[in-house]
């Protein structure tokens, strides 16, 4: 492990902070992050800001500034451990840092070099876990950075639901990496709820590796943070794997949220369905930069990528860049993107029945988000998102 850290640190020194000259970073300038002399903090004690799901989760790990603060609950057939106490676990040797590529991605290198702690979740073969596991990451204080690192390994024909929540107070920087391995025929329902403080920086990387006939649903909700970059990279590395990738980003004021997704169809007969929806208000800027790669061997690929955006103010900006890169001709792929305002006809219809203009606006904004929220399966997660979107709540 220490050797890996050393290599990653060296690699970060070579790569340096990404600049907008790089195609992958052209919409986001991380200079404000690079200017701070960040330090780690293992002492802070804060409450959970109401984000704990202890009452409903099977197990919950709580980290403050990247360090374990609290652990509770248990579930049969699944190991939920802090990485700091899991060094000898075989899953570490077999999977840790195998998928999130620190050679190529500077923030992954930075995380790999500096990770303080995080969760190791291992679901035994054939085990269907009823309920969900919650990982809560709280950032706290000014000038503090943390590098949460998670590894989730779901065994053959096993099933699990996992929720990551990021929240905090202050002018901190969270740089998280989560690797998910879905073994053959595994079913994974993954949620990532980013509700960082308005002055915080957040870079999140989720790296998903799917084997044969695995089903993964990964849902990414971005509501908070001043400057946010969310990367999701998925490799459909076994035949017949199935991915649903959902995104919802809701921005106001001068928030900047950059969603960068790559779905790599490596093997044949895989399906991927991606839907990202953005709601932008104030002077915010949102980005959807989604790439779907279909490799030469990935025949019979079925892939659909959609980005829909709702602009609530004239000063908000959205950059939408759905991209297909198809390297064989036996595929069914589509992609599209829309940018629009609230539907005038719908507004009038609601008002003509007695509903006020403000209420009609909220109803329609919430309706736009509900396509993503309603298909979530974990009620406390829906409730968290609804309360975080309270200003739009009818």
């Amino acid at each position: 492990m220490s050797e890996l850290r050393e290599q990653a640190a060296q690699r970060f020194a070579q790569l340096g902070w990404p600049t907008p000259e790089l195609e992958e970073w052209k919409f986001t300038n991380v200079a404000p992050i690079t200017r701070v002399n960040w330090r780690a903090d293992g002492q802070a004690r804060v409450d959970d800001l109401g984000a704990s799901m202890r009452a409903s989760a099977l197990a919950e790990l709580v980290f403050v500034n990247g360090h374990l603060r609290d652990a509770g609950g248990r579930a049969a057939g699944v190991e939920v451990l802090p990485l700091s106490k899991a060094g000898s676990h075989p899953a570490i040797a077999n999977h840790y840092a195998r998928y999130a590529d620190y050679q190529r991605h500077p923030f992954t290198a930075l995380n790999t070099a500096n990770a303080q702690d995080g969760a190791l979740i291992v679901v035994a073969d054939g085990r269907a876990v009823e309920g969900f596991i919650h990982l809560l990451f709280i950032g706290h204080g000014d000038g503090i950075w943390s590098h949460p690192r998670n590894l989730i390994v779901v065994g053959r024909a096993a099933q699990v639901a996992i929720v990551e929540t990021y929240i905090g107070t202050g002018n901190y920087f969270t740089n998280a990496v989560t690797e998910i391995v879905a073994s053959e025929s595994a079913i994974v329902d993954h949620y990532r709820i980013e509700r960082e403080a308005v002055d915080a920086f957040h870079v999140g990387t989720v790296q998903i590796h799917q084997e044969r006939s695995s089903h993964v649903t990964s849902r990414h909700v971005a509501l908070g943070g001043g400057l946010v970059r969310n990367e999701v990279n998925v490799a459909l590395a076994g035949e017949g794997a199935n991915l649903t990738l959902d995104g919802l980003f809701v921005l106001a004021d001068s928030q900047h949220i950059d969603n960068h997704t790559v779905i790599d169809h490596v093997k044949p007969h895989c399906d991927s369905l991606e839907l990202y929806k953005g709601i932008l208000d104030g002077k915010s800027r949102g980005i959807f930069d989604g790439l779907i790669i279909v490799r030469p061997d990935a025949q019979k690929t079925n892939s659909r990528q959609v980005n829909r955006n709702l602009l609530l103010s004239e000063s908000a900006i959205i950059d939408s860049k759905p991209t297909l890169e198809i390297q064989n001709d036996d595929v069914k792929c589509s992609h599209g993107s829309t940018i629009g305002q609230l539907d005038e006809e719908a507004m009038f219809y609601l008002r003509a029945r007695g509903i006020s203009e403000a209420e009609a606006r909220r109803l329609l904004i919430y309706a736009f988000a509900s396509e993503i929220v309603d298909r979530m399966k974990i009620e406390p997660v829906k409730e968290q998102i609804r309360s975080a979107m309270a200003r739009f709540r009818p």
Partner: protein
Amino acid sequence: MLDITNLHAGIDGKEILHGVDLHIGTGEVHAIMGPNGSGKSTLANVLAGRPRYEVTEGQVLYEGKDLLTMLPEDRAREGVFLAMQYPVEIPGVNNIYFLKAALNAIRKHHGEEELDAMEFLQLAREKMKLVDLDESFMNRGVNEGFSGGEKKRNEIFQMAVLDPKLAILDETDSGLDIDALQVVARGVNTLRSEKHSVLVITHYQRLLKYLVPDFVHVLADGRIVKSGGKGLAEELEQKGYEWIEQEVAAAR
């Protein structure tokens, strides 16, 4: 109930209504008929307060109050209901939630207690039977995936729940088969009373067989050119709109 005087109105800078006068008394059912492009829908939309429609002259008094300066939601709360010609689909807004919010906004406006979920559901079920709408429609998005006929029945269902004083039906009959037509007529006839007024806007006479008006008006080129009793509708059906247009031209 409703007094329209010398109403001039249009859209995108183009005047469509060139001076409409109409008086609707409490408890009366009026029909406005007219060829395409005569301004029927413009009149309906102006009365409901649809954005982008501009009134350039004239006035509309509703129960003695200036209707045209009221917001669309205030018109609805005061008892004006427009059954739309093209009801919009609103995915993600639950039909029953929407209608409950609407009814409670109206009740609150009148200082009445809001209905709770159970009370509302009871009311909604009763009214749904009236228009032959299946309960499964209630938990879908507003008009989402509804057929043309289902959308129109949903309009009448909403009307029945909201119980307006003045209901305006904008070509609710267009595109409906005879069964659906009868359902619509039944819904309106149920509403019919000494306290409720109805304005039916239609191109065809066939709805008026089931929904017999007290007065019929013919709108042509943005003006009401002829008014009469229910017999006028039958006359129009036999002779066509050309007859009116010729008569109007001859009178000039």
